[in-house]
Protein backbone atom coordinates (compact mmCIF):
# COMPACT_ATOMS: atom_id res chain seq x y z
CA UNK A 1 0.00 0.00 0.00
CA UNK A 2 1.27 3.42 -0.91
CA UNK A 3 1.45 5.81 2.02
CA UNK A 4 1.85 9.52 2.66
CA UNK A 5 5.19 10.91 3.79
CA UNK A 6 6.04 14.49 4.67
CA UNK A 7 9.05 15.34 2.52
CA UNK A 8 10.75 18.38 1.13
CA UNK A 9 11.85 18.35 -2.51
CA UNK A 10 15.37 17.17 -1.73
CA UNK A 11 14.07 14.34 0.46
CA UNK A 12 11.64 13.31 -2.28
CA UNK A 13 14.52 13.14 -4.77
CA UNK A 14 16.55 11.04 -2.33
CA UNK A 15 13.58 8.76 -1.70
CA UNK A 16 13.20 8.14 -5.44
CA UNK A 17 16.93 7.48 -5.93
CA UNK A 18 16.91 5.13 -2.96
CA UNK A 19 13.93 3.20 -4.33
CA UNK A 20 15.66 2.99 -7.72
CA UNK A 21 18.43 1.16 -5.80
CA UNK A 22 21.31 3.28 -7.01
CA UNK A 23 24.59 1.45 -6.41
CA UNK A 24 27.15 4.26 -6.64
CA UNK A 25 26.74 7.81 -5.38
CA UNK A 26 29.22 10.56 -6.16
CA UNK A 27 27.86 13.89 -5.00
CA UNK A 28 29.47 17.16 -4.02
CA UNK A 29 27.35 19.27 -1.66
CA UNK A 30 26.22 22.73 -2.72
CA UNK A 31 23.41 24.92 -1.41
CA UNK A 32 20.49 24.27 -1.89
CA UNK A 33 21.25 20.70 -3.03
CA UNK A 34 23.31 19.81 0.08
CA UNK A 35 20.68 17.81 1.91
CA UNK A 36 20.48 15.42 -1.07
CA UNK A 37 24.22 14.64 -0.76
CA UNK A 38 23.91 14.40 3.04
CA UNK A 39 20.83 12.18 3.16
CA UNK A 40 22.22 9.76 0.56
CA UNK A 41 25.37 9.57 2.69
CA UNK A 42 23.28 8.82 5.81
CA UNK A 43 21.38 6.07 4.00
CA UNK A 44 24.63 4.40 2.95
CA UNK A 45 26.34 4.70 6.35
CA UNK A 46 23.20 3.40 8.10
CA UNK A 47 23.20 0.39 5.79
CA UNK A 48 19.71 1.21 4.47
CA UNK A 49 20.99 1.78 0.94
CA UNK A 50 23.49 -0.80 -0.31
CA UNK A 51 25.67 1.52 -2.34
CA UNK A 52 29.19 2.88 -2.57
CA UNK A 53 29.43 6.56 -1.62
CA UNK A 54 32.35 8.34 -3.25
CA UNK A 55 33.51 11.57 -1.64
CA UNK A 56 34.62 13.54 -4.66
CA UNK A 57 36.43 16.87 -4.69
CA UNK A 58 34.25 18.71 -7.20
CA UNK A 59 31.19 18.45 -9.41
CA UNK A 60 33.44 17.78 -12.39
CA UNK A 61 34.64 14.66 -10.56
CA UNK A 62 31.15 13.83 -9.34
CA UNK A 63 29.81 13.55 -12.87
CA UNK A 64 32.96 11.80 -14.15
CA UNK A 65 32.70 9.18 -11.40
CA UNK A 66 28.97 8.72 -12.02
CA UNK A 67 29.62 8.09 -15.71
CA UNK A 68 32.37 5.55 -15.00
CA UNK A 69 30.29 3.78 -12.40
CA UNK A 70 27.15 3.57 -14.50
CA UNK A 71 29.12 2.21 -17.46
CA UNK A 72 29.98 -0.83 -15.33
CA UNK A 73 26.28 -1.70 -15.22
CA UNK A 74 24.70 -0.02 -12.18
CA UNK A 75 22.57 3.05 -11.56
CA UNK A 76 24.79 5.90 -10.41
CA UNK A 77 23.44 8.90 -8.52
CA UNK A 78 24.51 12.50 -8.25
CA UNK A 79 22.81 15.88 -7.90
CA UNK A 80 23.85 19.49 -8.05
CA UNK A 81 22.94 23.17 -8.32
CA UNK A 82 24.03 26.42 -9.94
CA UNK A 83 27.80 26.78 -10.27
CA UNK A 84 28.11 23.07 -9.50
CA UNK A 85 26.16 22.33 -12.67
CA UNK A 86 28.29 24.86 -14.53
CA UNK A 87 31.43 23.07 -13.37
CA UNK A 88 29.92 19.83 -14.69
CA UNK A 89 29.35 21.37 -18.12
CA UNK A 90 32.20 19.56 -19.88
CA UNK A 91 31.33 16.17 -18.43
CA UNK A 92 27.56 16.54 -18.92
CA UNK A 93 28.28 16.34 -22.61
CA UNK A 94 30.38 13.22 -22.08
CA UNK A 95 27.45 11.54 -20.30
CA UNK A 96 25.04 12.38 -23.10
CA UNK A 97 27.50 11.65 -25.92
CA UNK A 98 28.43 8.27 -24.42
CA UNK A 99 24.70 7.58 -24.02
CA UNK A 100 24.93 7.01 -20.25
CA UNK A 101 21.35 7.39 -18.96
CA UNK A 102 22.07 9.02 -15.59
CA UNK A 103 19.12 10.52 -13.70
CA UNK A 104 20.20 13.72 -11.95
CA UNK A 105 18.14 16.06 -9.77
CA UNK A 106 19.16 19.67 -10.43
CA UNK A 107 18.15 22.05 -7.66
CA UNK A 108 17.71 25.29 -9.56
CA UNK A 109 19.73 28.22 -8.29
CA UNK A 110 21.00 31.39 -9.97
CA UNK A 111 24.44 31.48 -11.53
CA UNK A 112 26.97 34.03 -10.31
CA UNK A 113 27.64 36.93 -10.45
CA UNK A 114 26.01 38.60 -8.43
CA UNK A 115 26.47 35.81 -5.91
CA UNK A 116 23.18 34.21 -4.92
CA UNK A 117 21.99 31.08 -3.13
CA UNK A 118 18.46 31.38 -4.41
CA UNK A 119 16.27 30.10 -7.17
CA UNK A 120 16.20 30.89 -10.82
CA UNK A 121 16.60 28.72 -13.91
CA UNK A 122 19.79 30.06 -15.45
CA UNK A 123 21.84 27.08 -14.28
CA UNK A 124 19.80 24.42 -16.09
CA UNK A 125 18.95 26.77 -18.99
CA UNK A 126 22.68 27.15 -19.63
CA UNK A 127 22.75 23.36 -20.12
CA UNK A 128 19.75 23.12 -22.40
CA UNK A 129 21.92 22.07 -25.34
CA UNK A 130 24.12 19.63 -23.42
CA UNK A 131 22.24 16.61 -24.74
CA UNK A 132 20.30 15.93 -21.54
CA UNK A 133 16.56 15.56 -21.23
CA UNK A 134 15.07 18.15 -18.85
CA UNK A 135 11.89 17.92 -16.80
CA UNK A 136 10.72 20.76 -14.50
CA UNK A 137 8.73 20.07 -11.31
CA UNK A 138 5.80 22.07 -9.95
CA UNK A 139 5.59 20.44 -6.51
CA UNK A 140 7.26 17.87 -4.29
CA UNK A 141 5.08 14.97 -5.47
CA UNK A 142 6.33 15.66 -8.98
CA UNK A 143 9.93 15.54 -7.77
CA UNK A 144 9.45 11.96 -6.57
CA UNK A 145 7.37 10.94 -9.58
CA UNK A 146 9.61 12.54 -12.24
CA UNK A 147 12.82 11.09 -10.77
CA UNK A 148 11.15 7.67 -10.69
CA UNK A 149 9.87 7.99 -14.26
CA UNK A 150 13.20 9.50 -15.27
CA UNK A 151 14.86 6.09 -14.95
CA UNK A 152 12.33 4.51 -17.28
CA UNK A 153 12.59 7.29 -19.86
CA UNK A 154 16.38 7.76 -19.85
CA UNK A 155 17.20 4.03 -19.82
CA UNK A 156 14.82 3.06 -22.63
CA UNK A 157 16.84 1.46 -25.43
CA UNK A 158 15.49 3.92 -27.97
CA UNK A 159 16.45 6.90 -25.77
CA UNK A 160 19.66 6.18 -23.79
CA UNK A 161 19.97 9.82 -22.86
CA UNK A 162 20.64 11.26 -19.39
CA UNK A 163 17.93 13.32 -17.73
CA UNK A 164 17.87 16.31 -15.39
CA UNK A 165 14.90 16.54 -13.06
CA UNK A 166 14.85 20.24 -12.20
CA UNK A 167 13.37 21.43 -8.92
CA UNK A 168 13.34 25.04 -7.75
CA UNK A 169 15.82 25.82 -5.00
CA UNK A 170 14.08 26.44 -1.64
CA UNK A 171 10.60 26.79 -3.19
CA UNK A 172 10.71 23.02 -3.72
CA UNK A 173 14.00 21.76 -2.30
CA UNK A 174 13.13 23.03 1.19
CA UNK A 175 9.33 23.12 1.00
CA UNK A 176 7.73 20.35 3.02
CA UNK A 177 4.69 18.79 1.38
CA UNK A 178 2.60 15.65 1.65
CA UNK A 179 3.84 13.08 -0.85
CA UNK A 180 2.34 9.71 -1.75
CA UNK A 181 5.16 7.15 -1.82
CA UNK A 182 4.54 3.73 -3.39
CA UNK A 183 5.75 0.42 -2.02
CA UNK A 184 9.26 -0.68 -2.94
CA UNK A 185 7.81 -3.66 -4.80
CA UNK A 186 5.69 -1.34 -6.97
CA UNK A 187 8.75 0.74 -7.88
CA UNK A 188 10.71 -2.44 -8.60
CA UNK A 189 7.99 -3.58 -10.95
CA UNK A 190 7.81 -0.20 -12.64
CA UNK A 191 11.49 0.55 -13.29
CA UNK A 192 13.14 -2.88 -12.91
CA UNK A 193 16.84 -3.59 -12.64
CA UNK A 194 19.41 -1.60 -14.55
CA UNK A 195 20.42 -3.30 -17.77
CA UNK A 196 23.29 -2.10 -19.97
CA UNK A 197 22.06 -1.52 -23.51
CA UNK A 198 25.05 0.16 -25.12
CA UNK A 199 28.69 0.99 -24.33
CA UNK A 200 29.90 -0.64 -21.11
CA UNK A 201 33.01 -1.10 -19.04
CA UNK A 202 34.18 -4.37 -17.51
CA UNK A 203 36.54 -3.72 -14.58
CA UNK A 204 38.14 -7.15 -15.10
CA UNK A 205 38.89 -6.32 -18.71
CA UNK A 206 39.66 -2.58 -18.84
CA UNK A 207 39.41 -0.66 -22.06
CA UNK A 208 39.26 2.91 -23.31
CA UNK A 209 36.01 4.45 -24.43
CA UNK A 210 35.18 7.94 -25.71
CA UNK A 211 38.09 7.87 -28.13
CA UNK A 212 38.96 10.51 -30.71
CA UNK A 213 36.27 10.50 -33.40
CA UNK A 214 37.07 11.80 -36.85
CA UNK A 215 34.84 14.12 -38.91
CA UNK A 216 33.93 10.99 -40.80
CA UNK A 217 31.73 9.70 -37.92
CA UNK A 218 31.16 12.64 -35.56
CA UNK A 219 28.08 13.96 -37.33
CA UNK A 220 26.49 10.52 -37.39
CA UNK A 221 27.02 10.04 -33.67
CA UNK A 222 25.42 13.42 -32.96
CA UNK A 223 22.57 12.38 -35.27
CA UNK A 224 22.04 9.28 -33.14
CA UNK A 225 21.54 11.57 -30.15
CA UNK A 226 19.05 13.66 -32.10
CA UNK A 227 17.07 10.51 -32.86
CA UNK A 228 17.30 9.62 -29.17
CA UNK A 229 15.56 12.92 -28.34
CA UNK A 230 12.86 12.30 -30.93
CA UNK A 231 12.27 8.85 -29.46
CA UNK A 232 12.27 10.33 -25.95
CA UNK A 233 9.12 12.30 -26.76
CA UNK A 234 7.20 9.11 -27.60
CA UNK A 235 8.72 7.07 -24.79
CA UNK A 236 7.93 9.83 -22.29
CA UNK A 237 4.27 9.87 -23.33
CA UNK A 238 4.11 6.08 -22.92
CA UNK A 239 5.85 6.11 -19.53
CA UNK A 240 3.50 8.87 -18.30
CA UNK A 241 0.48 6.78 -19.32
CA UNK A 242 1.86 3.61 -17.76
CA UNK A 243 2.63 5.52 -14.55
CA UNK A 244 -0.91 6.89 -14.48
CA UNK A 245 -2.33 3.40 -14.87
CA UNK A 246 -0.16 2.00 -12.10
CA UNK A 247 -0.04 4.88 -9.62
CA UNK A 248 -3.10 6.96 -10.51
CA UNK A 249 -1.36 10.29 -11.05
CA UNK A 250 -1.67 11.75 -14.54
CA UNK A 251 1.23 13.66 -16.08
CA UNK A 252 1.82 15.02 -19.57
CA UNK A 253 4.89 16.55 -21.22
CA UNK A 254 2.84 19.74 -21.54
CA UNK A 255 -0.06 20.31 -19.16
CA UNK A 256 -2.98 22.56 -19.97
CA UNK A 257 -4.97 24.13 -17.13
CA UNK A 258 -8.44 25.62 -17.73
CA UNK A 259 -7.62 26.32 -21.37
CA UNK A 260 -11.20 25.80 -22.61
CA UNK A 261 -12.52 29.20 -23.88
CA UNK A 262 -9.40 30.91 -22.47
CA UNK A 263 -8.47 34.19 -24.13
CA UNK A 264 -5.18 34.76 -22.31
CA UNK A 265 -2.74 32.11 -21.15
CA UNK A 266 0.48 32.13 -19.14
CA UNK A 267 3.14 29.61 -20.15
CA UNK A 268 5.50 28.70 -17.31
CA UNK A 269 7.78 26.06 -15.82
CA UNK A 270 8.64 24.91 -12.31
CA UNK A 271 7.16 25.90 -8.96
CA UNK A 272 5.70 29.16 -10.30
CA UNK A 273 3.27 27.05 -12.35
CA UNK A 274 1.34 26.26 -9.16
CA UNK A 275 1.01 29.95 -8.37
CA UNK A 276 -0.12 30.59 -11.97
CA UNK A 277 -2.87 27.96 -11.59
CA UNK A 278 -3.91 29.53 -8.28
CA UNK A 279 -4.24 32.94 -9.96
CA UNK A 280 -6.11 31.39 -12.91
CA UNK A 281 -8.68 30.09 -10.41
CA UNK A 282 -8.92 33.52 -8.76
CA UNK A 283 -9.43 35.32 -12.07
CA UNK A 284 -11.85 32.67 -13.39
CA UNK A 285 -14.02 33.24 -10.31
CA UNK A 286 -14.16 36.91 -11.38
CA UNK A 287 -15.30 35.81 -14.85
CA UNK A 288 -11.99 36.42 -16.64
CA UNK A 289 -11.21 33.91 -19.36
CA UNK A 290 -7.67 32.87 -18.50
CA UNK A 291 -5.72 29.64 -18.44
CA UNK A 292 -2.26 28.20 -17.92
CA UNK A 293 0.14 26.02 -19.84
CA UNK A 294 2.83 24.21 -17.85
CA UNK A 295 5.91 22.93 -19.64
CA UNK A 296 7.01 19.72 -17.92
CA UNK A 297 9.43 18.56 -20.61
CA UNK A 298 11.68 21.38 -21.79
CA UNK A 299 14.00 18.88 -23.50
CA UNK A 300 12.69 17.48 -25.70
CA UNK A 301 10.52 20.55 -26.29
CA UNK A 302 7.08 19.45 -27.42
CA UNK A 303 6.21 22.02 -30.07
CA UNK A 304 3.50 19.65 -31.35
CA UNK A 305 1.65 19.68 -28.03
CA UNK A 306 2.24 23.39 -27.38
CA UNK A 307 0.87 24.32 -30.80
CA UNK A 308 -2.17 22.10 -30.39
CA UNK A 309 -2.99 23.27 -26.88
CA UNK A 310 -2.54 26.99 -27.58
CA UNK A 311 -4.63 26.85 -30.77
CA UNK A 312 -7.08 29.75 -30.95
CA UNK A 313 -5.57 31.64 -28.00
CA UNK A 314 -4.67 35.18 -28.99
CA UNK A 315 -2.80 36.40 -25.93
CA UNK A 316 0.09 34.30 -24.71
CA UNK A 317 2.43 35.37 -21.91
CA UNK A 318 5.64 33.38 -21.50
CA UNK A 319 7.40 33.77 -18.13
CA UNK A 320 11.00 32.67 -17.77
CA UNK A 321 13.08 32.60 -14.62
CA UNK A 322 16.21 33.44 -16.61
CA UNK A 323 17.32 36.67 -18.28
CA UNK A 324 18.19 35.59 -21.84
CA UNK A 325 20.76 38.38 -22.03
CA UNK A 326 21.49 39.67 -25.50
CA UNK A 327 18.77 37.58 -27.09
CA UNK A 328 15.44 38.69 -28.53
CA UNK A 329 13.83 36.83 -25.67
CA UNK A 330 14.27 34.10 -23.12
CA UNK A 331 14.68 30.40 -24.04
CA UNK A 332 11.12 29.32 -23.29
CA UNK A 333 9.72 32.28 -25.24
CA UNK A 334 11.76 31.31 -28.31
CA UNK A 335 10.46 27.75 -28.09
CA UNK A 336 6.84 28.84 -27.72
CA UNK A 337 7.09 31.36 -30.58
CA UNK A 338 8.46 28.69 -32.88
CA UNK A 339 5.78 26.21 -31.88
CA UNK A 340 2.77 28.27 -32.85
CA UNK A 341 1.39 28.17 -36.39
CA UNK A 342 2.52 31.30 -38.15
CA UNK A 343 -0.81 31.53 -40.01
CA UNK A 344 -2.47 33.68 -37.38
CA UNK A 345 -0.73 37.03 -37.20
CA UNK A 346 -3.12 38.38 -34.58
CA UNK A 347 -1.58 36.18 -31.91
CA UNK A 348 0.55 38.03 -29.38
CA UNK A 349 3.30 36.02 -27.69
CA UNK A 350 4.85 38.28 -25.08
CA UNK A 351 7.95 37.53 -23.06
CA UNK A 352 8.26 38.18 -19.31
CA UNK A 353 11.38 37.86 -17.17
CA UNK A 354 10.88 37.40 -13.44
CA UNK A 355 11.87 35.59 -10.28
CA UNK A 356 15.61 36.00 -10.72
CA UNK A 357 18.05 35.19 -7.90
CA UNK A 358 15.29 34.08 -5.55
CA UNK A 359 12.85 36.96 -6.10
CA UNK A 360 9.42 35.61 -5.25
CA UNK A 361 7.02 35.15 -8.15
CA UNK A 362 4.06 36.19 -6.08
CA UNK A 363 0.33 36.07 -6.69
CA UNK A 364 0.55 39.82 -7.40
CA UNK A 365 3.32 39.28 -9.98
CA UNK A 366 1.22 36.72 -11.85
CA UNK A 367 -1.82 39.01 -11.72
CA UNK A 368 0.35 41.78 -13.16
CA UNK A 369 1.38 39.54 -16.06
CA UNK A 370 -2.24 38.64 -16.82
CA UNK A 371 -3.27 42.31 -16.62
CA UNK A 372 -0.43 43.28 -18.97
CA UNK A 373 -1.08 40.61 -21.59
CA UNK A 374 -4.86 41.17 -21.58
CA UNK A 375 -4.38 44.90 -22.12
CA UNK A 376 -1.49 44.86 -24.56
CA UNK A 377 -1.54 47.53 -27.24
CA UNK A 378 2.12 48.25 -27.70
CA UNK A 379 4.13 47.12 -30.68
CA UNK A 380 7.20 46.69 -28.51
CA UNK A 381 8.01 43.00 -28.30
CA UNK A 382 11.15 43.12 -26.20
CA UNK A 383 10.98 41.13 -22.94
CA UNK A 384 9.18 42.77 -20.02
CA UNK A 385 11.04 42.57 -16.72
CA UNK A 386 7.87 42.24 -14.72
CA UNK A 387 9.29 42.52 -11.20
CA UNK A 388 12.28 44.83 -11.65
CA UNK A 389 12.45 47.75 -9.20
CA UNK A 390 12.49 51.33 -10.40
CA UNK A 391 15.92 52.01 -8.94
CA UNK A 392 17.61 49.27 -10.99
CA UNK A 393 20.13 51.61 -12.58
CA UNK A 394 20.98 53.39 -9.34
CA UNK A 395 22.16 50.54 -7.14
CA UNK A 396 25.72 49.31 -6.60
CA UNK A 397 27.08 51.71 -9.20
CA UNK A 398 30.82 52.29 -8.97
CA UNK A 399 32.14 55.39 -10.72
CA UNK A 400 35.83 55.32 -11.48
CA UNK A 401 37.76 57.07 -14.24
CA UNK A 402 34.48 58.12 -15.86
Amino acid sequence: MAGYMMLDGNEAAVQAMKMAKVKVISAYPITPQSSIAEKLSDLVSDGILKAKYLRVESEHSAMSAAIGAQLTGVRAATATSSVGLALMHEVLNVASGCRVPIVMPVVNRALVSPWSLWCDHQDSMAERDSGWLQLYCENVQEVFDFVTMGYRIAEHEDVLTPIMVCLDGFFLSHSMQKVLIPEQSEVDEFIGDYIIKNTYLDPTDPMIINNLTSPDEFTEMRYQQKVGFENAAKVMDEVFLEFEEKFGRAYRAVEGYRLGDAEAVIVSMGSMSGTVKHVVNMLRSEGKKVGALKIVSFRPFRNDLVNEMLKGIKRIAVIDRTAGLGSQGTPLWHEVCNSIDKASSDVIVKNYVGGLGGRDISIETIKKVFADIMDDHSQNRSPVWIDVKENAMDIRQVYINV
Partner: protein
Amino acid sequence: MINIKFYGLGGQGVVTAAKTLSVAVSIYEGKYAVTIPAYGHERRGAPVYTDIRIDSEPVLANCFVYEPDIVLVMDESIREKNIDVSKGKHHDTVLVLNTADGSVARSYKDAYGFKDVFYVDATHCALNNIGLNIPNGAMLGALAKTGVVTINSIEDALKETFGEKAGVKNANAAREAYEKTEKI
Protein backbone atom coordinates in the same frame (compact mmCIF):
# COMPACT_ATOMS: atom_id res chain seq x y z
CA MET B 1 -7.17 28.48 2.48
CA ILE B 2 -5.39 29.79 5.54
CA ASN B 3 -2.18 31.80 5.17
CA ILE B 4 0.15 31.82 8.15
CA LYS B 5 3.38 33.65 8.92
CA PHE B 6 5.75 32.61 11.72
CA TYR B 7 8.26 35.13 13.07
CA GLY B 8 11.02 34.35 15.53
CA LEU B 9 14.70 34.46 16.20
CA GLY B 10 17.28 32.09 14.72
CA GLY B 11 17.58 29.10 17.06
CA GLN B 12 13.96 29.17 18.27
CA GLY B 13 12.95 26.47 15.79
CA VAL B 14 10.77 28.58 13.50
CA VAL B 15 11.26 26.40 10.42
CA THR B 16 10.80 23.20 12.43
CA ALA B 17 7.57 24.61 13.86
CA ALA B 18 6.21 25.22 10.36
CA LYS B 19 7.15 21.69 9.31
CA THR B 20 5.53 20.24 12.42
CA LEU B 21 2.34 22.18 11.77
CA SER B 22 2.46 20.87 8.21
CA VAL B 23 2.68 17.29 9.54
CA ALA B 24 -0.17 17.94 11.99
CA VAL B 25 -2.67 19.13 9.40
CA SER B 26 -1.48 16.94 6.48
CA ILE B 27 -1.10 13.58 8.20
CA TYR B 28 -3.43 13.84 11.20
CA GLU B 29 -6.23 15.97 9.72
CA GLY B 30 -6.20 14.86 6.07
CA LYS B 31 -5.60 18.40 4.81
CA TYR B 32 -2.85 19.84 2.62
CA ALA B 33 -0.07 22.22 3.52
CA VAL B 34 2.85 23.85 1.79
CA THR B 35 5.70 25.35 3.79
CA ILE B 36 7.58 28.18 2.11
CA PRO B 37 10.82 28.64 3.99
CA ALA B 38 12.77 31.88 3.60
CA TYR B 39 16.40 30.89 3.93
CA GLY B 40 18.86 33.72 4.00
CA HIS B 41 21.83 34.87 5.98
CA GLU B 42 20.31 33.73 9.27
CA ARG B 43 22.36 33.30 12.35
CA ARG B 44 21.42 32.46 15.91
CA GLY B 45 19.45 35.32 17.44
CA ALA B 46 18.66 37.16 14.19
CA PRO B 47 15.03 37.65 13.12
CA VAL B 48 13.70 34.89 10.85
CA TYR B 49 10.33 34.08 9.34
CA THR B 50 8.66 31.28 7.47
CA ASP B 51 5.32 30.88 5.72
CA ILE B 52 2.77 28.11 5.50
CA ARG B 53 -0.48 27.65 3.57
CA ILE B 54 -3.14 25.17 4.70
CA ASP B 55 -6.23 24.05 2.82
CA SER B 56 -8.64 21.16 2.56
CA GLU B 57 -7.71 20.99 -1.15
CA PRO B 58 -4.18 20.58 -2.54
CA VAL B 59 -2.39 23.93 -2.25
CA LEU B 60 -1.36 25.30 -5.63
CA ALA B 61 0.26 28.62 -4.72
CA ASN B 62 3.98 28.32 -4.05
CA CYS B 63 5.11 31.81 -3.12
CA PHE B 64 5.52 33.82 0.05
CA VAL B 65 2.54 34.88 2.16
CA TYR B 66 1.95 38.64 1.96
CA GLU B 67 -1.52 38.79 3.57
CA PRO B 68 -1.47 36.46 6.57
CA ASP B 69 -4.63 35.29 8.32
CA ILE B 70 -2.59 34.23 11.33
CA VAL B 71 0.69 35.74 12.53
CA LEU B 72 2.68 33.78 15.12
CA VAL B 73 5.49 35.56 16.97
CA MET B 74 7.88 33.46 19.05
CA ASP B 75 9.72 36.35 20.69
CA GLU B 76 8.11 39.55 21.92
CA SER B 77 11.35 41.49 21.29
CA ILE B 78 10.96 41.08 17.53
CA ARG B 79 9.27 44.48 17.15
CA GLU B 80 12.45 46.10 18.48
CA LYS B 81 14.45 44.55 15.64
CA ASN B 82 12.91 46.58 12.85
CA ILE B 83 10.38 43.85 11.95
CA ASP B 84 6.75 44.86 11.35
CA VAL B 85 4.75 41.75 12.26
CA SER B 86 1.54 43.45 11.13
CA LYS B 87 2.73 43.78 7.53
CA GLY B 88 -0.04 42.70 5.15
CA LYS B 89 -2.57 42.04 7.90
CA HIS B 90 -6.28 42.41 7.18
CA HIS B 91 -9.20 43.11 9.52
CA ASP B 92 -9.56 39.44 10.55
CA THR B 93 -5.88 38.67 11.08
CA VAL B 94 -5.10 37.25 14.51
CA LEU B 95 -1.81 37.17 16.42
CA VAL B 96 -0.35 34.35 18.49
CA LEU B 97 2.32 35.79 20.78
CA ASN B 98 4.90 34.39 23.16
CA THR B 99 4.82 36.64 26.20
CA ALA B 100 4.38 36.28 29.95
CA ASP B 101 2.99 39.77 30.16
CA GLY B 102 -0.65 40.52 29.34
CA SER B 103 0.14 44.20 28.95
CA VAL B 104 2.66 43.37 26.19
CA ALA B 105 -0.04 41.34 24.43
CA ARG B 106 -2.43 44.27 24.84
CA SER B 107 0.15 46.68 23.40
CA TYR B 108 0.64 44.43 20.36
CA LYS B 109 -3.13 44.37 19.85
CA ASP B 110 -3.52 48.11 20.23
CA ALA B 111 -0.45 49.13 18.26
CA TYR B 112 -1.05 46.85 15.28
CA GLY B 113 -4.83 46.38 15.38
CA PHE B 114 -4.97 42.59 15.29
CA LYS B 115 -8.52 41.25 15.63
CA ASP B 116 -7.56 38.87 18.44
CA VAL B 117 -4.34 38.23 20.28
CA PHE B 118 -3.66 34.79 21.76
CA TYR B 119 -0.78 34.88 24.20
CA VAL B 120 1.07 32.53 26.49
CA ASP B 121 4.46 32.30 28.20
CA ALA B 122 5.72 29.64 25.79
CA THR B 123 9.29 30.10 26.94
CA HIS B 124 8.24 29.06 30.44
CA CYS B 125 6.28 26.08 29.08
CA ALA B 126 9.36 24.99 27.10
CA LEU B 127 11.73 25.35 30.05
CA ASN B 128 9.23 23.56 32.28
CA ASN B 129 8.82 20.53 30.01
CA ILE B 130 11.90 20.19 27.84
CA GLY B 131 14.39 22.17 29.91
CA LEU B 132 15.44 24.26 26.92
CA ASN B 133 14.58 27.75 25.78
CA ILE B 134 13.15 26.52 22.48
CA PRO B 135 9.51 27.65 22.46
CA ASN B 136 8.44 26.28 19.07
CA GLY B 137 6.48 23.25 20.32
CA ALA B 138 4.74 25.31 23.01
CA MET B 139 3.83 27.98 20.45
CA LEU B 140 2.13 25.34 18.31
CA GLY B 141 0.01 24.54 21.37
CA ALA B 142 -0.98 28.21 21.56
CA LEU B 143 -1.67 28.21 17.82
CA ALA B 144 -4.17 25.37 18.34
CA LYS B 145 -6.30 27.83 20.35
CA THR B 146 -7.05 29.71 17.12
CA GLY B 147 -8.81 26.60 15.81
CA VAL B 148 -6.61 26.18 12.73
CA VAL B 149 -5.44 22.80 14.07
CA THR B 150 -6.38 20.61 17.03
CA ILE B 151 -4.09 20.24 20.03
CA ASN B 152 -4.24 16.45 19.57
CA SER B 153 -2.84 16.72 16.04
CA ILE B 154 -0.09 19.04 17.30
CA GLU B 155 0.85 16.54 20.01
CA ASP B 156 0.93 13.67 17.52
CA ALA B 157 3.00 15.68 15.03
CA LEU B 158 5.49 16.76 17.71
CA LYS B 159 5.98 13.12 18.71
CA GLU B 160 6.56 12.24 15.08
CA THR B 161 8.95 15.14 14.44
CA PHE B 162 11.02 14.83 17.62
CA GLY B 163 10.83 11.07 18.23
CA GLU B 164 9.18 9.40 21.21
CA LYS B 165 11.27 10.80 24.09
CA ALA B 166 11.82 14.43 23.09
CA GLY B 167 8.47 14.32 21.30
CA VAL B 168 6.53 13.60 24.50
CA LYS B 169 8.27 16.49 26.28
CA ASN B 170 7.47 18.84 23.41
CA ALA B 171 3.89 17.56 23.31
CA ASN B 172 3.60 18.26 27.05
CA ALA B 173 4.93 21.78 26.48
CA ALA B 174 2.35 22.27 23.73
CA ARG B 175 -0.47 20.97 25.93
CA GLU B 176 0.55 23.21 28.84
CA ALA B 177 0.75 26.22 26.53
CA TYR B 178 -2.60 25.35 24.97
CA GLU B 179 -4.26 25.26 28.37
CA LYS B 180 -2.67 28.50 29.56
CA THR B 181 -3.24 30.54 26.40
CA GLU B 182 -5.27 33.69 26.98
CA LYS B 183 -7.23 35.51 24.34
CA ILE B 184 -7.76 39.25 24.22
